[in-house]
């Protein structure tokens, strides 16, 4: 089971209601055989843009991030269930980020173009292809001499 992050925005409501709706949301995960790794509360704050959900316009939201392990097939099902939940303004499910283990390639990128590997590759590709933009004189045009300088 891969780890997913569920970014939740819940509507403004008192704490007791928030508790019940969070419980409902997490039980939906448990019912599909998933587990919750952590629930983070990012606080109640103004949204950067107004959002309309279930016939209401929301300008503030309770932000939560739930880290969970579920089957890949359960994700679409969960998303559908949360879309029907009137307390959920907006929900996004992302795959949890893997560790970034690439070395910095800035030094190679700052080289002059002729030394960059991708530019060299482009030049090699260009050499194998015909230049469509170069005008080529056609000898069957009726002139019996070549009109340009050789």
């Amino acid at each position: 089971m891969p780890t997913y992050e569920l970014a939740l925005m819940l509507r403004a409501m008192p704490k007791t209601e928030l508790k019940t709706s969070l419980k409902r949301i997490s039980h939906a995960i448990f019912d599909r055989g998933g587990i919750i790794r952590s629930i983070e509360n990012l606080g109640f704050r103004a949204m950067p843009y107004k959002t309309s959900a279930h016939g209401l316009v929301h300008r503030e939201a309770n932000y939560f991030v739930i880290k969970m392990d579920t089957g890949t097939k359960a994700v679409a099902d969960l998303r559908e269930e949360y879309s029907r939940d009137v307390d959920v303004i907006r929900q996004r499910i992302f795959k949890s980020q893997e560790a970034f283990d690439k070395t910095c390639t800035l030094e190679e990128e700052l080289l002059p173009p002729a030394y960059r590997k991708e530019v060299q590759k482009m030049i090699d590709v260009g050499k194998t292809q015909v230049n469509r933009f170069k005008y080529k004189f056609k000898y069957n045009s009726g002139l019996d001499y070549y009109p340009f300088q050789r």
Partner: protein
Amino acid sequence: MALLKTLVSRYILPTTYRATAIRYSSTDPKLAESDDSPVEMENPYKKEVRQCILCKLNITPDYKNHRLLSQFQSPYTGRIYGRHITGLCKAKQDLVESEIRKAQNCAYMPYYYKDKSFLKDPKLFDPENPIRSHRF
């Protein structure tokens, strides 16, 4: 007489010098052991390998950290600055861009402006002086 003089200078003088002067050769064991002999070392003038600011500080951008991500956004239009302005390596720039898109989609971050509480954050780069020139 002149001929004789040149002959003398050419044949006799050098032989006398050769006899008197002591000549050291490079294979002389006394000299090879002295401190002036060349030392094997790395090039001291070699420049340090440049790294982008996120690789140097070992930071992986994350969509939840929208304060960091907002530093890569224009305060006037909310547009994501390009690699020629931010000075990031290709992999980190791609990651920053995708994480900004995620954060905007999750309503952590606005699309068309920068959060006004982050306007006075320290500048990581100068948009007026890009690494490569741009058409704006």
